[in-house]
């Protein structure tokens, strides 16, 4: 080793020697700026908020629609009610099959259609009832002598089929 090398080392050691033995500052893990920052900050936050809102709306709508559909078909929020009715109808249809006959599809679908019409009519009748009560409060003599109209309204209240197709009532 040359004299110059020794001189360099002495000088380096004079200045850096204390550095080698100094107290090391405590390591603090840097704040997570990766995944969470991308999710919670900037464009990520906007997209995430929209996605969450979208999911919430869809979930709410699905829950509401499911409940309404179920209630309208079975008259109850309990899905077992409508299921039991269908099971019973299937059994009835099977029993009604004569020898050589195949398939109960028509029989069951007729029941389902009848049930659907019934529920649909009941909804329309409830609307008519609301309208009827509103009319009655407006004037007493207005409905007198109009028996056919009243009977139709009564039919709707009880959910019976009328001469007019249900779709034209509304």
């Amino acid at each position: 080793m040359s004299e110059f090398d020794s001189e360099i080392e002495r000088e380096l050691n004079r200045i850096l020697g204390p550095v080698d033995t100094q107290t090391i500052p405590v390591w603090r893990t840097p704040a997570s700026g990766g995944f969470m920052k991308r999710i919670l900050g900037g464009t990520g936050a906007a997209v995430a908020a929209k996605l969450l809102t979208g999911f919430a709306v869809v979930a709410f709508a699905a829950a509401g629609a499911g409940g309404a559909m179920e209630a309208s078909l079975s008259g109850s929020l309990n899905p077992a009610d409508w299921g039991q009715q269908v099971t019973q109808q299937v059994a009835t249809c099977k029993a009604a099959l004569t020898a050589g006959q195949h398939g109960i599809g028509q029989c069951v679908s007729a029941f389902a259609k009848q049930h659907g019409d019934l529920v649909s009519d009941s909804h329309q009748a409830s609307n008519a009832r609301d309208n009827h009560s509103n009319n009655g409060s407006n004037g007493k003599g207005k409905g007198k002598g109009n028996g056919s109209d009243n009977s139709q309204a009564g039919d709707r209240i009880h959910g019976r089929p009328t001469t007019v197709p249900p779709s034209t009532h509304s």
Partner: protein
Amino acid sequence: MIGIGTEGIGGAAPEYKPGSEADFERLYRSSYNRVLGTLIGILGERAAAEDCVQDAFVRAYRSWSSWRGDAPAEAWLHRIAINTAISHQRYERMREAGQVLRRLGRPAPPPDPATLVERSDLFRALSKLPPKQAAAIVLRHHHGYTNREIAAALDIPERTVASRLAGAKERLRKVLSYERSADSQISVGTLSEDGVPSD
């Protein structure tokens, strides 16, 4: 000279698991002072070196899980730290140039006493060298790393380390003798590529 011991840059390096928080903390404790010493040698200022070391460790922490272990952890860390110091130095030179332009015609502010600690002739000369040459000098002549270990740290061939060290010493010799002959009254200018001081 400080020996590298068993936890040096190469040789019987301790086992580190990439991504392990505990291992990173162990690496931090075992290498902080050595990395700081290297950066003081490059930058010539302790405060700036401390900032760069912190920055380098944060950078290293962020890519710790992707450290593949093809080079010893401390060599990898030194590489990050030296690159951080080079970036810092570039930024500082640009900033200083801007400040000089702004204060043309006004008296320069007095030097900060805190930065004078490392203002020995050697450190002043080191800070005029290209950063990778200065790093090679500190790694070789203070930390006692071998040329192979320095090659791993700087990601260069071993022969390049030898020529870089020889070139660095040649420049240092010229600068120091120039400074002494000028009785330390003339400030040392930036070295050109051939090692001749030029203001």
